[in-house]
């Protein structure tokens, strides 16, 4: 019976193939796209790196080339995996807890970072490699990735929040953005814009709390109290939302597809000129250059409006802490490379040049030849130079505490509360009280 023999043979072959697949090492076929050689030789150590932002990989690629040239005996090959935000953090969390399958190096977003610091963090403390650079970098950006004096994450940027104005729309409405200093000014300008152009001045964000953190920082408040307990229904928070709700009611701001400026749908809305302003951390610049080509030469950067003059005009927003995991193949190599790639002066200059971020080494902010390089794509894209604004507000940049409750607070605000307030018109105090109760229940 030929046929039977054939079937059995096929099955055996398949079983073998299966076993092979099951046990094959990570060097299997395919995926060329993600391994960065960067001039590494035969003996290079292969390190794996997970991120949710493809561009971060590009930055590492540049730094790796320099590293491999300077350290011929400690060369590295970087194996980059890009995953969507949620999936990457979930997988990383599981991999770390189970002690298997974690990469050597990973990006963890600020909003998720506290989850990774619970209990005994499965991350390597980075104090020793940060120390040589400690004096040059913004301390608060290290603190947000730390626990009990140990620094677990290396920051990428300051994330100073600013206002991005589409000057074409403002000029059409006869508004001068440089005159906008307070939210009242913003409201008047917005009413004028709506009246003249029918367009909205800004967005009422439902899926991100950037604006709330800006307004809280202006009042010297935070989402949590000194001991890290959530206080979402504080008078300051009510005030913040009242300001925004009033803007929404006056047709100055409106909800946007995607729920906040940093989503693919919103990029489209901005690009086609439906909204004039985005209040976002500075890293939003790279979204403009990447996704909103139509606005080149039209967008100006300015300090945020404040509730009352004299209040701080910026807050650090977002951020990614790059970590080395406990299971890393070569911990010291990973740490040294990471510090080199993100903290050295070269790295900080590169972070501005490639990623368009405001680097944590503030010395770079003063390097005119770097920050005002006329060939830089970000300098070319925007009407004014971002560093002129950054240097104006550099002493006013507050930061929001990152505590164990932060991920829960953020989740409740951005899935439930802000939607209730801006989409359904629910009473602000009521919505915030409900949020507080919900957060407390979830934290139990």
């Amino acid at each position: 019976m030929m046929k039977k023999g054939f079937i059995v043979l096929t099955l055996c072959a398949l079983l073998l193939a299966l076993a092979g697949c099951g046990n094959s090492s990570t060097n299997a076929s395919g995926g060329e796209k993600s391994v960065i050689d960067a001039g590494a030789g035969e003996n290079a150590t292969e390190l794996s790196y997970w991120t949710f932002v493809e561009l971060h990989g590009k930055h590492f690629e540049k730094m790796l080339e320099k590293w491999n040239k300077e350290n011929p005996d400690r060369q590295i090959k970087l194996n980059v995996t890009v995953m969507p935000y949620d999936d990457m953090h979930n997988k990383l969390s599981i991999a770390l807890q189970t002690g298997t399958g974690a990469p050597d190096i990973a990006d963890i977003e600020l909003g998720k970072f506290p989850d990774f610091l619970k209990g005994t963090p499965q991350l390597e403390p980075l104090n020793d490699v940060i120390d040589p650079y400690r004096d040059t970098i913004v301390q608060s950006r290290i603190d947000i990735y730390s626990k009990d004096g140990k620094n677990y994450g290396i920051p990428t940027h300051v994330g100073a929040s600013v206002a991005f104005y589409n000057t074409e729309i403002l000029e059409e409405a006869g508004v001068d953005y440089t005159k906008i200093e307070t939210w009242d000014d913003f409201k008047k300008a917005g009413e004028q814009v709506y009246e003249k152009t029918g367009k909205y001045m800004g967005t009422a964000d439902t899926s991100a709390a950037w604006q709330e953190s800006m307004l809280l920082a202006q009042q010297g408040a935070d989402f949590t109290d000194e001991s890290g307990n959530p206080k979402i229904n504080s008078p300051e928070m009510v005030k913040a939302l009242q300001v925004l709700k009033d803007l929404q009611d006056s047709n100055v701001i409106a909800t946007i597809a995607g729920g906040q400026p940093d989503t693919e749908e919103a990029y489209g809305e901005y690009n086609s000129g439906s909204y004039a302003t985005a209040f976002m951390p500075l890293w939003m610049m790279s979204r403009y250059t990447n996704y909103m080509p139509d606005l080149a030469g039209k967008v100006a950067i300015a300090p945020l409006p404040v509730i009352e003059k004299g209040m701080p005009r910026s807050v650090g927003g977002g951020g990614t802490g790059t970590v080395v995991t406990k299971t890393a193949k070569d911990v010291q190599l990973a740490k040294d490379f990471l510090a080199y790639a993100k903290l050295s002066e070269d790295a900080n200059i590169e972070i501005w040049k490639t990623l368009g971020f405001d680097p944590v080494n503030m010395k770079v902010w003063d390097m005119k030849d770097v920050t005002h390089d006329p060939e830089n794509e970000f300098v070319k894209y925007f009407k004014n130079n971002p560093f002129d604004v950054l240097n104006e507000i550099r002493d006013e940049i507050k930061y929001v505490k990152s505590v164990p409750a932060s991920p829960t607070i953020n989740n409740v605000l951005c899935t439930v509360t802000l939607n209730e307030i801006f989409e359904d018109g629910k009473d602000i105090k009521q919505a915030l009280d409900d949020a507080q109760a919900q957060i407390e229940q979830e934290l139990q």
Partner: protein
Amino acid sequence: MIKRFLYSQKVAPYVFVMPFVLVFLIFWVYPLGSSVSMSFQKISLGQESQWIGLDNYTKLLGDTIFLKAVMNSAVYMICTLLILIPLPMLLAVLINSKLMWGREFFKSSLFFPALTSVVVAGTIFRLMFGEMDGSLINSFLGWFGIDPVKFLKGQVTGFIALLALATWRWLGVNMLYFLSGLKNIPDDYYEAASIDGASAWQKFRMITMPLLKPTSIYVLTISIYAGLAMFIESLMLWNGNNSPKNIGLTIVGYLYRQGIEKSNLGYAAAVGIVLLVLAMTINMIQLAFSGMFKKED
């Protein structure tokens, strides 16, 4: 000796069913058992777990988000039953009629969506139901002078998108189920009814419907199961497990959120047990009502 033993007629059947027994024990009984025991513990991967009795369950009862998830799953299940049983049955009867032109073509076309993966289908529907006025559904509505709708931000509209996706994928399959049921109804019944002067509607009521009962029960059973366990559709439609105001959160979504996203494994296990009990109970009641057991035993 061993060979003789293994080849004997007494032992052979056990060898044949052995793979099932192994899979059943390793991948069903053991996980199910550990699921039950996990549900009585506070447990995180890689950390000491502790027994906390019924705490997870009592906490579930007061967990508004969990109740929301149960509501969503239940409503979704009921809606799919209301749409995906009568409609496919009617279509099956119509398409089976002698008056139908191009039967095979229509059958295939209606069935084809079932072959796409949920990931692809979900992405397509996510884009179709986008809130921009240029997206497919909103541009249709625009023809009728209706303003763009933010489908995926509202409870009702979000469910419309979910149900549209479910109907699109399963209409054709369920229709085929009913068609195969129709094939088993002998022609003589209809001929006899015609002689007695029965109208088309009477024939449908008195012959087709009752004789399609076994098929209906089958479709009902799998639909209850699929409705209660729905997750990926919602995950893809909202591109994540966090829909605005949790309008798309399902029981399995909550299990995923607690177990995978927050690593509360014990709590998540309790969610799973509740789902199991719910699915079993509903299906048992349903089968008892439809007299399935009496017929089988």
